[in-house]
């Protein structure tokens, strides 16, 4: 009988609270969007599944050993943990969790050892998160793989499209200001770290967003990643109205001239140029852009095809699986079911909109000076969201003129946007982490 009670007390239904139930549905919704609607499935399938796993009541898969010990609720366990943390024995579980989170690293290590002595272990997803994201390695490895998949040819054929990739990052910083504004006006309480991490959603680049959020605002990582990937999938809905509103029919019909052929050597030298510029000007962007350039150099140099292949396939796939599950582990009820998440979702879509608009307007502005006119529709591709945004540019261009293939031309600003948001990530980390 005692065992039956134990099984019942160990069962999920016994522990289920409303929040976890809602989060299980959120996980299923993400899976539905990914599988049925094709929303960035490579990331949202693992994230959605991870969200379900993280919210299995009583399993504690996303908790550390200490949090699992606290969650057990046994008074003698709580008392021992409290003693190590220097908290009051009857402080309550929430207070102990807070005390643990803010304790110095040495105290956390002591508490961890005590928890393992008491038989508690880190949850599976917590371990994945620590290795994949806590260490920062997974977004960097994915960035390396993305670099190995990126062809800078269209950018090199027309380098001034880099300006479009720069302009579209204005969405990032406008959103920072928006988040700060919400906080100042008392609507939602965001710190400057939170604001910077939310802004990076406007970079429309998944690994960059995860990397920045894991450093500046790990609590918000789940919501930020979900927003970033969802809006990247929604780019075909978000961007066209803005693009049409800011251009007239003549502008949309502009035909761009055939691109010049880019030589192999230019492609080999470009990642090195970019790397040296990063080294000299913005070292804080070195991890992200360094790995990106490394992947691209492996791709273009032509002598390490084995390594390039692996970084585009086995390595990026393995990393994606664990990155996705780890992000999902941050979709716990108490973090995600919070007004902040609504704020993040609202600010994120504004960021995409502003980025799109700035890209288009900057293209029109450049046409005032340049001899070779740019079709402003390719400006919107500067937000990144590779390669979706470039396809959107192409599609809207074809609507205006069925002969006007913009895809190649839009790839320039598209990959420029990746560089732009990585630069923005570097500068934000540099400024914010020292405030």
């Amino acid at each position, binding site marked *: 009988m005692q065992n039956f009670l134990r099984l019942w007390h160990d069962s999920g239904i016994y522990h289920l609270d409303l929040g976890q139930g809602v989060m299980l549905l959120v996980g299923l919704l993400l899976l539905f969007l990914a599988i049925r609607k094709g929303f960035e499935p490579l990331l949202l399938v693992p994230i959605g599944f991870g969200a379900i796993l993280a919210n299995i009541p009583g399993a504690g898969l996303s908790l550390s050993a200490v949090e699992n010990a606290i969650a057990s609720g046994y008074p003698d366990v709580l008392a021992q943990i409290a003693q190590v943390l220097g908290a009051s024995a009857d402080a309550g579980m929430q207070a102990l969790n807070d005390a643990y989170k803010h304790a110095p690293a040495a105290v956390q290590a002591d508490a961890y050892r005590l928890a393992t002595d008491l038989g508690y272990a880190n949850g599976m997803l917590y371990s994945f998160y620590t290795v994949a994201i806590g260490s920062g390695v997974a977004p960097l490895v994915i960035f390396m793989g993305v670099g190995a998949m990126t062809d800078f040819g269209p950018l090199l054929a027309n*380098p001034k499209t880099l300006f479009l990739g720069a302009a579209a990052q204005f969405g990032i910083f406008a959103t920072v*200001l928006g988040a700060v504004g919400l*906080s100042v006006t008392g609507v939602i309480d965001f710190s400057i770290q939170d604001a910077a991490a939310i802004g990076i959603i406007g970079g429309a680049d998944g690994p960059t967003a995860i990397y920045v959020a894991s450093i500046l605002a790990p609590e918000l990582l789940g919501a930020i990643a979900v927003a970033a990937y969802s809006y990247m999938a929604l780019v075909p809905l978000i961007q066209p109205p803005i693009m049409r509103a800011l251009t007239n029919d003549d502008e949309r019909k502009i035909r761009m001239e055939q691109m010049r*052929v880019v030589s192999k050597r230019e492609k080999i030298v*470009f990642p090195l*140029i970019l790397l040296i510029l990063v080294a000299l000007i913005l070292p804080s962007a070195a991890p992200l852009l360094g790995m990106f350039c490394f992947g691209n150099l492996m791709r273009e140099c032509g002598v390490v095809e084995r390594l390039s292949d692996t970084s585009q396939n086995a390595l990026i796939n393995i990393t994606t699986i664990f990155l996705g599950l780890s992000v999902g582990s941050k979709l716990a009820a108490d973090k995600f079911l919070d007004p902040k998440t609504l704020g993040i979702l609202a600010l994120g879509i504004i960021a995409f909109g502003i980025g799109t608009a700035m890209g288009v307007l900057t293209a029109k502005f450049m046409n005032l000076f340049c001899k070779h006119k740019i079709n402003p529709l390719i400006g919107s591709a500067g937000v990144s969201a590779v390669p979706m945004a470039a396809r959107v540019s192409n599609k809207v261009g074809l609507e205006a003129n069925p002969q006007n293939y913009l895809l*190649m031309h839009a790839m320039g600003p598209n990959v420029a946007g990746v560089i732009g948001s990585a630069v*923005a990530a570097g500068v*934000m980390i540099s400024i914010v982490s020292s405030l």
Partner: protein
Amino acid sequence: MQDTLMQQGIDLMIYGMGTVLVFLTLLVIATLIMSRFVMRFFPDPVVAEPSRPAIQTGRTAEVDPAVRSAIEKAIALHRARR
């Protein structure tokens, strides 16, 4: 305190966006110089392929050389047998 937060946000915007613009402008300049330099002094021995679609989201589209040679052999064999 709240003034400070606003100020921090504005600072972040000005210096952040400024850095992005300056960095990418320098990159445009450096790229143009590099391209001119490479094209002039180190042109590719043969003309390179036209620029491919920028990011391949799936597996590399090229067929493995081993596969291609197998196909060619298979067809040669097939032709020889006729």
